[in-house]
């Protein structure tokens, strides 16, 4: 029998799968490094929470609204930052994440520093499983469509993609919009699971954690995100047995895992996969022509 502790971990794993898979679309498939994914999660969590609390919307409608609002912010963030590449984009997403957190912390409607209380408990195992399946199905459909191919083309070589007639701006915004949509969905599930939300949990460390899930599972592999998310949700719980050494083990584990499988658990070795891609380029060594 599953105790509610296990159910809780499975639900959190499910939410993390949604977060990691949606981040994978932006970072793993489109090649846009984002370290601010938690911002969309918090927007979704607050928007859906407020829809439930203030407007009295039913749960599923609130979830949808949260996802939609997050998606709108995703497009908004996507638009001006399209000129930015690589780590410059990363830092803008990070800044966005911190700005969102600070604004929510100082707003009255969100409960500010006290947090938003009194949400009903709606998220259960079934809802999460259904949402995970929907997320993975939709993302798979997108990735196997024209859009998906365009996204991968952008990751592999943006200039070439543009040369091939791909409207890179349009597709990058789509990636951000869709990624943020599902992140918002995850946020809505999150807030209706804990019945309480506070902005401090959506800081850049959470974004980093989500990025770790994606990289650990394998960039550009949706199933990898599933594995990565479940692993990084379960491992800290398993490490509870080691009490005071817990975080030490966790840090060491990240280093060791990357050393053993740098391409991620389900990632592909770089041969034949993005060999020209700047994103997957060997860190230390760039070919002259590439610069």
């Amino acid at each position: 029998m599953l105790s509610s502790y296990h159910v809780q971990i499975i639900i959190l794993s499910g939410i993390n799968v949604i977060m990691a898979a949606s981040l994978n679309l932006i970072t793993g498939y489109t090649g846009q490094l984002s370290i601010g994914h938690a911002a969309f999660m918090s927007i979704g969590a607050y928007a859906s929470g407020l829809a439930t609390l203030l407007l009295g919307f039913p749960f599923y409608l609130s979830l949808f609204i949260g996802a939609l609002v997050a998606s709108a912010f995703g497009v908004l963030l996507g638009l001006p930052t399209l000129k930015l590449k690589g780590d410059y984009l990363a830092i803008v997403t990070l800044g966005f994440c911190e700005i969102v957190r600070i604004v929510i912390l100082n707003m009255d409607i969100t409960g500010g520093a006290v947090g938003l209380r009194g949400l009903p408990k709606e998220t259960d195992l079934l809802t999460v499983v259904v949402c995970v399946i929907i997320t993975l199905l939709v993302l798979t459909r997108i990735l196997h469509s024209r859009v998906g191919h365009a996204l991968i083309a952008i990751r592999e070589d943006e200039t070439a993609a543009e040369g091939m007639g791909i409207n890179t701006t349009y597709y990058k915004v789509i990636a951000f919009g869709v990624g943020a949509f599902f992140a918002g969905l995850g946020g809505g599930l999150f807030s209706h699971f804990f019945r309480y939300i506070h902005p401090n949990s959506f800081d850049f460390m959470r974004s980093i954690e989500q990025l770790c899930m994606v990289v650990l599972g394998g960039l550009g592999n949706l199933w990898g995100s599933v594995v990565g998310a479940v692993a990084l949700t379960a491992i800290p719980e398993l490490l509870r047995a080691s009490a005071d050494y817990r975080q030490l083990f966790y840090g060491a584990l990240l280093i060791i895992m990357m050393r053993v499988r740098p391409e991620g658990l389900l990632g592909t070795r770089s041969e034949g996969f993005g060999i020209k891609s700047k994103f997957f380029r060997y860190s230390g060594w760039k070919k002259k022509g590439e610069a």
Partner: protein
Amino acid sequence: MLSQQLVNGIVLGSTYALIALGYTMVYGIIELINFAHGEIYMFGAFVAMLLVTIYKVPFLLSLLVAMALSSLLGVTIEFLAYRPLRRAPRLAALISAIGASIFLQNLALFIMGPRPYNFPSPFERRVFNLEIFAISQIELYILLISFFLMLGLHFLIMKTKLGKAMRATAQDKDTAALMGINIDKVISATFLIGSAFGAASGVMIGVYFRSVSPTMGLMPGLKGFVAAVLGGIGNIPGAMLGGLLLGVAETMGAAYLSSQYRDAVAFAILIVVLILKPSGLLGKMVQDKV
């Protein structure tokens, strides 16, 4: 008031600049965001604090020892956590860096305990009250030490053989290797110098704010990274400029806009700057070739 806040901002900014230098040097050579840099900063502060309080070592000497030991730590981290990943995807090294950061922070917590320690001030409290602003002795020292460290770095990079090798490696590793440059050594040297700067910054912040704690590296590490990007990551004068600008922006934001939104203001400025200049203030726009 305005001039006073400007001075506050510049002092804060010069410490950010020192942290940013470490980030930017490492990035310039191996394109890695060295997340463990904040922990090196913390380590440096702890070493100096322990030397000063327990062994009564003079401040400047303990600063140098802290820089030396932190350099060793930086090189060790590079050797253990980054070198094996040099041929791996970039993000793998990033995750490894995050792992190193978590590990070191919690190691410090484990050994030193969570309470902040007092860093006894080596200088007496003296404030020079000029007409338009006041500056304390310690602030002057921070500005002075930062200035000389940066000057030294500039000299090292522009005038020495090692500096030349570093610049060559940053430009093109393969060609540099063909020219007989030992890439491994250059990378180690980069970590050595970058970590020394991080430690110097940690020691000065420790003295300035009079406290040292295991988690002290978290926010400054992030800010240093932001400053490095703001100036154009990989660009050394850029890191200095970025650091100063970030310090001033943060101070002005807190003073004139709202102290509640201080960090938000700093990040908003960052985003605006990057939208206007997508590769940072002094970064070069690299044209992609197909």
